């Protein structure tokens, strides 16, 4: 079982992101579960969502305490919420930012991690470019697919366009592709 934890703020699509990931995995014939933690609906409040992907039916429903992958949709959460709780050095870490880990103040923490499992992506900027709105989850999903290989970009795009038909879906799909390309490009030197 692979467990992903997504940190965001209400209104950024963290919950939808987890859901779309689960749908992408479903399209690859795998079992997947997505769910959020809840407070009362409030834009801007910290939100955590979870996604589990496995090849067997998933029976547990507890929050993910030790994620195999961590996605941070909003870097302002880094020093406000304990996003790294339970995150071990083998984990994938993906942060929405146009800065580096060092600039974000988490460089030291990530030192023991496998650099091929770490990535940043300027998802908000990519979203603005492709969607005209600062909704980072589609680029992050594409980036996630590139970083982890857990789901294919194709499945991510399919999940997105199924959920958001027409122009909105197409734009989100392009944003996801851009996120994917960003990570692939950033990882190239280390894969050479």
């Amino acid at each position, binding site marked *: 079982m692979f467990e992903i934890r997504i940190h965001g703020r209400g209104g950024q699509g963290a919950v939808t992101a987890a859901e779309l990931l*689960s749908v992408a995995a479903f399209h690859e014939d795998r079992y997947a579960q997505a769910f959020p933690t809840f407070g009362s609906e409030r834009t801007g409040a910290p939100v955590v969502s979870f996604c589990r992907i496995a090849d067997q039916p998933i029976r547990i429903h507890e929050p993910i305490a030790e994620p195999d992958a961590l996605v941070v949709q909003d870097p302002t959460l880094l020093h406000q919420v304990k996003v790294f709780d339970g995150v071990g050095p083998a984990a994938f870490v993906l942060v929405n930012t146009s800065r580096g880990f060092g600039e974000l103040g988490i460089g030291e923490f990530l030192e023991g991690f496998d650099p091929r499992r770490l990535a940043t992506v300027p998802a908000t900027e990519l979203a603005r470019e492709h969607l005209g709105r600062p909704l980072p989850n589609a680029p992050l999903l594409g980036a996630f697919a590139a970083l982890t290989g857990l789901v294919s970009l194709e499945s991510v795009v399919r999940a997105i366009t199924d959920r958001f038909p027409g122009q909105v879906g197409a734009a989100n799909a392009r944003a996801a592709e851009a996120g994917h390309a960003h990570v692939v490009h950033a990882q190239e030197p280390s894969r050479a």
Partner: protein
Amino acid sequence: MPSQLEGSLAVARTVARCRPQVVAAYPISPQTHIVEALSDMVRTGELAPCEYLMVESEFGAMSACIGASAAGARTYTATASQGLLFMAEAVFNASGLGLPIVMTVANRAIGAPINIWNDHSDAMALRDSGWFQLFAESNQDAVDLHVQAYRLAEELSLPVMVCMDGYVLTHAVERLELPTREQVDAFLPPFTPRQVLDPHDPVTIGAMVGPEAFTEVKYLMHAVQMRALDAVPRIAAEFEAAFGRRSGGLVRPYRTEDAETVVVALGSVLGTVETVVDEMRAEGVRIGALGITCFRPWPLQEVRDVLAGAQRVVIVEKAFAAGAGGIVGQNTRDALRGTPTVVYDVVAGLGGRPVTRRSLHRLFDEVLAERLDPAGLHFLDLNTGLVERELARMRNPRPGPHAESMLRDLGSVGAESH
């Protein structure tokens, strides 16, 4: 054909396929997605003919269902927590009038203090209301139980509560098999009530019944509840034959055949319990689990049959009777009367506190090492320091709620955020 769907949406689509003619609902977290989806389906005509009443309260919701059901319509509502309590008078009225209403309870804690997260205190508060109570272990279960619920309700002429853990199940997106319209139509015959409000054949429904007949009416309610002990398994078997999967039934044993220790639980926590059972079995511990699917009526004989051979039983439940002890625990002890089985009552998951594999491992290890006292009620993951300080403060008592009083101790307002 499987789908990847949110539990609430799956339940709404399934209920729609049961062809309710009147839906009356008032929104309350965490049930909102169910009733919103049904409202959409009525508006688009996907669910027709159906009248959707946007009532002014849960009391109004159940009352409208009572009127609709008495007038011959298949009806549906959903609620949780405070909403279930707000309609409590009408809940008893519905079962007393023998109306086959089906209601989803998206289990949520009851305040004060206000808490929107999952536990079973709402359903347990109305366990004696004369309604059938079914608890879903998974979203697939929840979907299937609603279909079976209409069969059960209309056969025995008593309403059914289908309980599913709020947020944990309602808001989880999972892989599910939705029953098709054709399958449900074949499984659920049209609703043909024995007495109905009809100008061509007027009847009086809801008369005052005095001491000379009230006992008999109530006895009959109990007798009908007990009949469900046969009806529930039969309907489950028919469901399996028609839909090709097992769900419903009275109880669900898991690796209990040679178990020395059996864990009893209701609802989604069973998934976690079964995972821990598997892990401990791999270490050679003879442990199993018993899921209770039908809580009312209480399947006493079935529970006894599974548990009587065990040395110890650990009940992990998401509600309790303040001042008395466990609720499922009490019912389980009833079933184990006269046996030497040791019973442990453990309350877990109150107000949405996650019940984790780690905590359960620790709990079961304690039980097996006989470090847990079978007498008394245990609270899993209790912050004993916090409560002891509050209890000490109470030695110089000034009345007031504990939640606010404890905050003085925490120093800073605002708990840690996850």
